């Protein structure tokens, strides 16, 4: 039988990336700024949302949340208590969220006047950074109790994040570390993204991050409705 060489030169994009690009189109058609929150388990992602989402609402930027965990709906329950629409994904063992999971979850959310969608990824500093979900911004969260060496140990996430949140800074006096220790370590990986120092004990500490989010929204969608 005649064999033939067929030259193709076709790029291979994983199914996840293709689905992510579809997600992005859907998000933009609803004028939603989408933020992918990535950190270790226990860094304070849910606490951050519990504090920031109501503040954004007060500023006229209501938000929605997609929660990702291996098991339980505990995080979604916490968010729902703040009267923020939230859907929980349980991955049953998969260590990161993928685009198709996000689309299925998003279809369960009734979007009205919301402007920001937060995706709280599975607690993991490795895999979530590698899986694009269709978000506008990837945000890394690091708590001071994790140690200042984590950015260098998990370089991809910190290098590619649009901003970094350093949480639980009220605990710094109990550690032999200063905020400068963390900032200099993060800056080794990322010279440009803003670093926000926050603590749930100090509500004002969230303002700069809230301002950053609003600025991001305006830069993409402008001022109009």
């Amino acid at each position, binding site marked *: 039988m005649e064999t033939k060489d*067929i030259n193709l*030169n076709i790029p291979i994009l994983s199914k996840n990336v293709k689905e992510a690009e579809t997600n992005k189109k859907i998000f933009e058609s609803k004028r939603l700024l989408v933020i992918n929150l990535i950190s270790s388990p226990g860094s304070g992602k849910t606490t951050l949302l519990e504090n920031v989402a109501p503040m954004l609402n007060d500023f006229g930027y209501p938000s929605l949340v997609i929660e990702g965990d291996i098991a339980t709906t505990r995080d979604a329950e916490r968010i729902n208590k703040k009267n923020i629409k939230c859907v929980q994904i349980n991955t049953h063992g998969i260590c990161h969220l993928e685009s198709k999971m996000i689309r299925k979850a998003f279809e369960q959310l009734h979007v009205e006047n919301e402007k920001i969608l937060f995706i709280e990824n599975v607690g993991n500093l490795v895999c979530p950074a590698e899986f694009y979900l269709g978000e506008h911004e990837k945000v890394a969260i690091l708590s001071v109790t994790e140690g200042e060496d984590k950015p260098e140990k998990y370089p991809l996430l910190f290098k590619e994040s649009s901003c970094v949140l350093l949480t639980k800074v009220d605990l710094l006096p109990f550690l032999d570390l200063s905020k400068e220790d963390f900032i200099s370590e993060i800056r080794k990986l990322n010279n440009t993204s803003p670093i926000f120092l926050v603590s749930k004990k100090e509500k004002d500490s969230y303002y700069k991050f809230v301002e950053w989010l609003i600025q991001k929204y305006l830069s993409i969608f402008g001022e109009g409705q």
Partner: protein
Amino acid sequence: MHEASIVQEIIDITTEQAKQNNAKKILEVEITVGAGAMIETDLLASAFDIMKYETMLESATLKINKVNLKLHCLNCGKVFESNKMVMECPNCHSFETIIESGREMLINKIIAE
């Protein structure tokens, strides 16, 4: 991390192309994988050997061309290559590096009958 998904894409794309060229069977698939694609080529080859069954690629061999990651350091100006995904300059140890090339994943060609 997502080698099986990549293999599925390879199978889908090459099957479609073979059909468009009136071929019934694929004998070889040649691909190029950059070090920056973060794909373990051994895992990719193993996944291919399993996933090709009952497809047009059942008898196909997978030929993988590996391409190095090429970076330059904004701190000291060094241009360097790596066969792994790296971000640190080997010269000055800065992480202020830019990837010039080597993140691609491409299906080069198929041999079919």
